[in-house]
């Protein structure tokens, strides 16, 4: 009798501790080997793009925030820059530098969550506690500036929510001083841990050709040897003035991506230090009351005209001339882009987001085909998806 080959169909998720959210995977297993993997998405579909159409341009910042919730500020940056492109305005240098600084801080915070959770997937619990302890310090800085820890909506069209508070640079300086010891800690915990190295090295491999064909960005692309970082390739918000390297690796495996993220954190910390050291004085928002609200104490409470502008801005918003604009920025996960279509009213006609996690997730079936199911866990961790970003 011929031996019958049978495969087992296994449903993984949407509630599973290592799918990093509500990702569902339908697996076809042959023993412990994954023959087919089909991601099923949509369990966190929020309708953010549609909701943004019903909000004024500044209100839409709040929903864009909640997309990639590990790094809300880079979402903001893509959207705000796209709208500013449509309006044809340039923000003052101080605003640009503060935006760069906070984008890099949130990149570090995001990578810390990634490191903690990816290590937890591999069974290394304590890394999680270290990473979150240190992430709290970055969240403290965001909280003292924007008022909330997560989802701060700090970047606004034409400026920021507020200027940096007193004592910010001292606190940031202290953080940057102890930053190298954090990194050393993680390297000590993981880099010399044989379990970690063995499970990551050679797992979740993707070739350069596939990575390009699938439209991957971020570390998943850079681990295959492609040197693409939008901060260098298409500088925005004044990134061309900063000195930093874009680390690239060649193997395209999970270990490369881990190393890339650690090195990117070092580069990010370097950018933050440059930003705070040469933070220009001057205004932190544009001086146009039709777009950016006049200061409450300085103008609104004294000047009738300012009051009218303030009122009109918050009840009706500002009108954007018809047109369309796309702005991509390098988020912690890759290219996050905002495509905004304006029809001359105070609300966007269409907001479309190019979410890096969505594209990167497509590579998962390729990475895990004919590999062990344990490598699947490594693969999910290594591409660093955020389901809020995938489903929007």
């Amino acid at each position, binding site marked *: 009798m011929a031996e019958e080959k049978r495969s087992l169909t296994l449903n993984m998720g*949407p*509630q*599973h*501790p290592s799918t990093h*959210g*509500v990702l569902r995977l339908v697996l076809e297993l042959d023993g412990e080997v994954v023959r087919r993997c089909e991601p099923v998405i*949509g*369990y*966190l*579909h*929020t*309708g*953010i793009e*549609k*909701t943004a159409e019903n909000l004024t341009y500044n209100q839409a910042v*709040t*929903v864009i925030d*909640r997309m990639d*919730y*590990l790094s809300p500020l880079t979402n903001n940056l893509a959207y705000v820059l796209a709208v500013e492109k449509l309006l044809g305005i340039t923000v003052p240098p101080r605003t640009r530098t503060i935006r760069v600084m906070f984008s890099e801080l949130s990149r570090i915070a995001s990578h810390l*969550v990634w490191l*903690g*959770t990816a290590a937890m997937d591999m069974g290394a619990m304590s890394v*999680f*506690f*270290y990473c*979150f*302890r240190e*992430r*709290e310090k970055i*969240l403290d800085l965001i909280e003292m500036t924007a008022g909330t*820890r*997560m*989802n701060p909506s700090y970047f606004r069209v034409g400026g920021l929510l507020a200027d940096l508070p007193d004592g910010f640079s001292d606190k940031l300086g202290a953080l940057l001083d102890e930053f190298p010891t954090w990194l050393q800690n993680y390297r000590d915990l993981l880099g010399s841990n044989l379990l970690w190295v063995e499970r990551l090295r050679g797992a979740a491999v993707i070739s350069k050709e596939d990575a390009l064909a699938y439209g991957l960005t971020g570390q998943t692309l850079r681990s295959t040897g492609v040197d693409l970082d939008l901060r260098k390739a298409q500088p925005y918000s004044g990134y061309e003035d900063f000195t930093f390297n874009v680390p690239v690796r060649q193997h395209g495996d999970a270990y490369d991506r881990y190393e890339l993220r650690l090195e990117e954190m070092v580069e990010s910390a370097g950018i933050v230090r440059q930003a705070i050291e040469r933070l220009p004085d001057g205004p932190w928002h544009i001086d146009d009351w039709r777009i950016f609200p006049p200061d409450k104490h300085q103008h609104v409470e004294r000047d009738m005209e300012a009051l009218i502008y303030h009122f009109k801005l918050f009840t009706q918003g500002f009108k954007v001339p018809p047109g369309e604009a796309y702005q991509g920025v390098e988020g912690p996960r890759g290219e996050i882009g905002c495509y905004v279509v304006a029809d001359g009213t105070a609300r966007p006609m269409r907001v479309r987001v190019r979410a890096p996690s969505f594209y990167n997730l497509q590579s998962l079936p390729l990475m895990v085909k004919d590999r062990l199911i344990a490598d699947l866990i490594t693969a999910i961790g290594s591409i660093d998806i955020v*389901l*809020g970003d995938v*489903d929007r």
Partner: protein
Amino acid sequence: MGSLEDRPFLLTSVDRMLRWAQKNSIWPAQFGLACCAIEMMSTAAARFDLARFGAEVMRASPRQADLMIVAGRVAQKMAPVLRQIYDQMPDPKWVISMGACASCGGVFNNYAILQGVDRVVPVDVYVPGCPPTPEQLLDGIIKLQQKITAGGIPANRGHALAQTAGRP
């Protein structure tokens, strides 16, 4: 023979004893949806240390959990899954609705998001915020502990079930 109070005894009822044990060993289901899940993780992590309240044992299987923290927005597609997870949890069980989205839909009043998780599961404690800070979640858990100590039925289940049945 002296009174019992002088002896090394503690007099209580079985019910109170059980409630005391339940209150101090809440096992939440490890189940996050969106932004709030990250704050839930922060609550369990070093600074806020959920272990101080005996609730740090996050269980990946709903069958080992007795608290469901609905952390984040519940999409229409997720709602039946969420209900199934709730049904898989053994009694007695409690639900914390964490954040504005889980409580009432939050900023997402649209076609995709369930306008409040109490449409599919009975909720014991609502924690406001977008997302709530870890302190707020800790406060929610303390409130739940008080509720457990006070006794009674975990939440008005019959009512919530009737509500679910009434909705299309």
